[in-house]
């Protein structure tokens, strides 16, 4: 039983409290999801459970927190670590040792457990998370999903009764995320472990969640209730749930299976009156010459062929989404278009010029490339400075108006002097976008731009990309996120094993694919609908 009584917490040197008069009670044994807009204090709340707030972060805490009978304020994190396990977001920054086994044993070594007992405990923990085949592996050789499972195992070594996870899948691709969430569900079902999870990708996890804790922005009280009630009341929700709310389906469907029970009869009622897919802005016919033209690209890494003779065109004023399994060659193609990877064969023309003789810096004057981790781009003291640095790098004139205009377009005017690394994930990405587009390139290439973003930030990104597209920018996005593709793509390309296996409009490519179909497409097969707006537009109702 976890209790918060009128808890107010302020980080040191912060202007306003992170948690404001929070009171709630969380029962044991449930899988609890914590949702809310970014900045609402979800991470802070989790950290109150095991004493990281306030022992690690300092600051001022008012009110009472109780985890079972322990008080995280009086007890140290060391004592609480036996009661509450914690898993963090970054699979790269949680490990102290090299080998999986040693990592699990680290907590036990610190607790001075007898070696015999340690052996048994480590074996049990390995089995809990199915990590026995990986026990001797160096952690650096594991995938993101495997690493997070190791992190969970390491947190469970001391047999806590509560497991708190702060966005454990936000840095992972969908397959790994699924593995991790399945492990969590198993732990909850088989062991009765109380799991408190902060997560943005609700689609995968909603069916298994018992209750949701909703932390709204400041000023409103927190809500704790079962899944369907909360989902019925809040804005941010997966497409399926949003559709269910809009069409009044009760009880609110959480899985495709439940949704089909509603969608089939609904569709049958409207038999014959399908409206074609509505899309905010039809894909314009390809005008003029392609901005990027690639022919016969062959890339080989050692023994492995990453790209086998790929042809690709990118026209101005369109958004192309590149999808495929891990290792299909999508990122390699993207990188070869800017010169980060030089192909063994093939020709690439950007804005009419062959890029073979140019270096990356020169190419990127005309093509903006957003890397997966925008943190690697940022190093200036202020947001404005970032933009100026790019301009100086390209030896272009530093025009203040250009900078202000770009910041305004990206909704960053109020943060023009902020230290970039202090900003939220979404804002940092926008700063990085600004930094690479200040040269006014003709094309934008984005590598997994929605990793780590919540729904609000994603919508913001979609809006900006559409606006750019309408102004004539050529945009190429590599992503695993099918909902993103459904929302913005004019053209979708599927890749596998270094070749393009499907190409066409989103409806034709995505709707029937078992791996890549968005939720709406699964609900309404053979209609060509991909988003909530499609469905509602077809129904004659106006929705945003």
């Amino acid at each position, binding site marked *: 039983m976890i209790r918060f009584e009128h808890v107010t917490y302020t980080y040191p040197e912060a202007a306003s409290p992170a948690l404001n008069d929070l009171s709630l009670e969380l029962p044991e044994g449930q899988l609890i999801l914590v949702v809310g807009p970014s900045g609402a204090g979800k991470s802070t709340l989790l950290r109150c459970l*095991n004493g*990281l707030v306030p*022992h*690690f972060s300092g600051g001022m805490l008012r009110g009472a927190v109780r985890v079972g009978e322990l008080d995280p304020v009086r007890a*140290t*994190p*060391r004592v609480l670590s036996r009661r509450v*396990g*914690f898993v*963090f*977001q*970054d699979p*790269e*920054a*949680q*490990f*102290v*040792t*090299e*080998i999986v086994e040693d990592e699990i*044993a680290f*907590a*036990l*070594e*610190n*607790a*001075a*457990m*007898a*070696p015999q007992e340690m*052996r048994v405990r480590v074996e049990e923990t390995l089995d809990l998370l199915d990590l026995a085949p990986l026990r001797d592996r160096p952690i*650096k050789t594991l995938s993101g999903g495997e690493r997070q499972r190791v*992190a969970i195992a*390491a*947190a469970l*070594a*001391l047999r806590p009764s509560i497991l708190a996870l702060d966005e454990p899948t936000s840095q992972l691709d969908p397959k790994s995320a699924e593995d991790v969430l399945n492990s969590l569900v198993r732990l909850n079902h088989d062991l009765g472990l109380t799991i408190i999870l902060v997560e943005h990708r609700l689609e995968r996890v909603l069916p298994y969640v018992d209750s949701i804790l909703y932390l709204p922005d400041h000023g409103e009280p927190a809500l704790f209730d079962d899944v369907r009630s909360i989902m019925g009341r809040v804005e941010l929700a997966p497409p399926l749930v949003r559709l269910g709310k809009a069409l009044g389906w009760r009880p609110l469907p959480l899985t495709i299976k439940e949704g089909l029970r509603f969608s089939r009869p609904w569709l049958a009622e409207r038999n014959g009156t399908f409206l074609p897919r509505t899309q905010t802005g039809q894909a314009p016919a390809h005008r003029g010459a392609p901005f990027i033209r690639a022919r016969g690209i062959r890339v080989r890494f050692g023994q492995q062929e990453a790209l086998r003779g790929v042809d690709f065109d990118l026209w101005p004023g369109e958004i192309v989404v590149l999808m495929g399994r891990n290792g299909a060659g999508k990122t390699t193609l993207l990188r070869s278009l*800017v010169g*980060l990877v030089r192909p063994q064969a093939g020709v690439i023309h950007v804005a009419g010029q062959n890029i073979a003789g140019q*270096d*990356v*810096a020169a190419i*990127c*004057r005309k093509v903006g*490339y957003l*890397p997966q*981790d925008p*943190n*690697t*781009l*940022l*190093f200036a003291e202020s947001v404005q400075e970032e933009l100026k*640095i*790019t301009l100086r*790098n*390209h030896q272009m004139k530093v025009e203040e108006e250009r900078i202000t205009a770009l910041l305004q377009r990206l909704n960053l005017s109020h943060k023009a002097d902020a230290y970039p*690394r202090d900003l939220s994930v979404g804002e940092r990405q926008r700063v990085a976008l600004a*930094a*690479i587009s200040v*040269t006014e390139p003709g094309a934008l290439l984005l590598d997994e731009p929605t990793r780590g973003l919540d729904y609000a930030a994603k919508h913001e990104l979609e809006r900006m990309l559409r606006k750019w597209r309408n102004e004539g920018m050529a945009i190429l996005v590599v992503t695993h996120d099918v909902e993103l593709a459904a929302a913005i793509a004019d053209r979708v390309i599927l890749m596998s094993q270094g070749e393009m296996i499907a190409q066409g409009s989103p409806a034709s490519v995505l709707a029937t694919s078992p791996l890549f179909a968005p939720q709406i497409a699964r609900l309404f097969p053979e209609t060509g609908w991909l988003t909530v707006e499609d469905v509602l537009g077809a129904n004659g109702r106006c929705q945003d």
Partner: protein
Amino acid sequence: MDISVKGALVQNGMQAASYPPRSIHSMAWMAWIAAIVVIATLTRNPFYLGLMIAIAAFVRWRWTTQLALPQVALLSPLRFSLLVVASAALFNMAMVHTGSNVLFVLPSWIPLLGGAWTLEALVYGALNGVALVSLFLGFSVLNHATSVRSLLRLIPRAFYPAAVVTSIAVSFIPTTLQQIEQIREAQAVRGHRLRGVRSWLPLTIPLLEGGVERALQLAEAMTARGFASGAPVQKRWSQWLVLAGFVGVVVGWLLQIIWRQQEIGIALLVLGTLLVLAGLWRAGRRHPHTVYRAERWQLHDWLVVLGAGVAVVAYLLPWFERETLFYYPYPTLTWPLFDWRIGLATLGLLAPALS
């Protein structure tokens, strides 16, 4: 005489090279390398050194072939050794100008190099090089035979925080390398070119900032798992003990060599060492933690330690003819002497290769 013995051993070794040697406890390896360091520091007798090099080379050969490791050195060990010996010989010949077999003479107004270049100096320099080579060989065996993990376990408990730092650093190196690559690309993508010293700044700053952010998250993860390195302790008896022991050792040594007080000197030395060990033990108790999967000490490890111990004892204690150890070609080049008993004791270093 000893050459034939050596040859026979090498033969035997080749026949026995069909199955891999058992893994040896890191502590035993420490004893082995300590013996090599002691011997290489003490003696310049070419017979003893040569014997040791042969033994070390043999052990190395056994361990590298069994572990099937590729030879990644830029220079093969043989060529590297020859280079070291040659340069050391050259150095000494150029610096020291005593000896009776003069090879040639440079005018003495040249600083440092002027004077007689003698054969004795050449030989002595070569011997220095040979001692260095034996050290290199010994350490190269150590590098091949132990892993970072096992070496880290050797660090005594008193230094647990330092051991944790080392462990973290080792596990973070792949991430850092990856980060560097990513940062390089990210900066290239915004027009950055490596021109001049200032252009390294956009690469190092994100690296450090990213590192600091990761360090914070790692600290959180460690705290969440119960890591408590402890607040500074008020009464630092262990440190006083260690300091006192240290002073004891130093004073004892000085007494021994400067003022010739053998008994008091050695007594102080021993006392000092004991105090230091006591202090370390006490300091270790402040970090209560156990070790998962400690390496098992087997019979074979006893053999290795025993062999190393026998070798060291023969070289340190004045039971055998210790004078043979200290061979100097000056002022005239003479044939070095050899005590077969010391040579025999050196064979104790072969223990890791026999299994």
